[in-house]
């Protein structure tokens, strides 16, 4: 393998960055999927209230 030729600092930098991306993205996707649903429910409930009150 040619890995020895690749600058070790660069290899670690990009490797850690990629790992951080995958871990962060995986976690945020699950979290946002749950919290975002609640946000949508709240937003639509408020807009429904506005709609029921009629034009200001």
């Amino acid at each position: 393998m040619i890995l020895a030729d690749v600058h070790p600092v660069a290899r670690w930098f990009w490797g850690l960055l990629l790992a951080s991306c995958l871990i962060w993205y995986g976690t945020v996707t699950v979290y946002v999927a749950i919290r975002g649903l609640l946000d949508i429910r709240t937003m639509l409930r408020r807009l429904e209230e506005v709609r029921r009150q009629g034009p200001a």
Partner: protein
Amino acid sequence: MTHFSWPIDGSIVGVYLLATMVVGIMVRRYVGKVEHFLVAGREMNVYLGVASLAATEFGIVTCMYTAQNGYKYGFAGAIPGLTNVLAMFLIGYTGFGVKPLRDAGVMTIPELFEQRYGRFVRWLSGVVIVLGGLLNMGVFLRMGGQFLVVCCGLDLRYLEVTMTALLIAVAVYTVLGGMLSVLVTDFLQFVVMSAGLIAVTILVLLKVGWGNILAAVDRNYGAAGFNPFLHPDLGWQFALSNTLTSLAAVLTWQPVIARVLAARDSRTGRRIYTRTSFFFIARWMLPGLWAMGALAAAAVTPEKLAEIAQRLGEKDGTLFAMPYFLGLALPSGLMGILVAAMLAADMSTDSSYMLTWGSVIYNDILGPLRRRRPLSERAGLLWNRFIVAAIGLFLLFWGLWYRLEGDLWAYLQLTGTIYLAAMSVLLVACAYWRGANNWGAIAAIVVGAALPVIGLALDKLIQVPVRDAAGQIIMVGDVPKTIGWKSLYIGDHWLNIGTYAATAAAMIIGSWLKNMLVRPVDSDRGATREVRS
């Protein structure tokens, strides 16, 4: 031969498309006013904002240009992602520029400018925002169609049909539900897109191997593949150009700013920025990695990519390395997830962009007409829907006609600069410089728009033969290989940096001139109100 299977992958894609359309159309009943249509009644909270911002700022076109950078420059090509992260986090954390913007309670950036620079500057800002925005977005649809054709192995005859079908699907729910439909479908699209991106990345890593990807980058580009400052085509001017673009885009790119403006308050808007910031490196790293997987794959050869590019009428085959590689590498089932994810990404981007450019046309360009003859909410909604549909038609025709000259990212950066340079300078001056006035603003807008437009025109109108190291003209068949004049003699990075510098200088000189030549009592009627945080 790709592994796309119509019964399996087609069903996955079909179910996803149906779900999106149903959800998008369902929320239209909540749209009763123009404010609901354009900024969702300003009821968006943090996590919906994070999903929407991430989904909007990742389309097939994003995937294509980040992958092209990965294929052409290795890891060094992902530097714009790092500048994006830093810019978005810093601006979200400090509220620089975006806090006064949200606190002003406006629906678009030009609306804020009217308070400081007057009506004409608002109108002119609207014109350059729409010009830059539509030219930028003009290639989205074509890229989406090309990705699907190459990745799924569709017949080329279906390229236009694919593009049109994609556009109609997006236009239907955007026209009906405006920002509300965009937000709710963005949420669904974020989940599907993220699942697809993560799954495909893991599969590429398992199939190709991290070591082989590193070795492929090293073999093709050496140390320059890991360090942009060593790359002859990148260098510090590439990093500086992207830093300027990132800062300006985070401050004033209307589809991004629309999330701050639709947020419940400026604190929510800033939290959306800080919490989404890291996504901006993921959107460069993951597709970039897929393309570096293509570098390691024996089946993806420059000859094959050139043949695909010729078939699709494009000049640069590197654009198609990633979709061609994925078509070969992914098994059936995962192909369906990938295509659904990419469609999700593309639909969320197209819908948001159509809506935000439409909002500027309605709010700022047509604003002076509405002052003379105010519209009812119903008529305003109808106008907005008509404008979004008209933008869709423009995209279809521009996408069919326009051919790229160089890197996709360079094109997007340059067309974005048509307005990013001037709008970011105007916003910063509006919020933080007492001496700024409408002379400076007009000078900045004209200079900021003129330089990139001249650059694009030089590329299109003057073609120069490409020569090899020995000075001989390179031939493609019987025809000499050509490149645009600006790309060869100025370069996209220098033009970008020069535009920002000239725009800032125009703002300063124009404002000073007015402050020196015009007495304050005569100055800018109705345009001197301070807008400060």
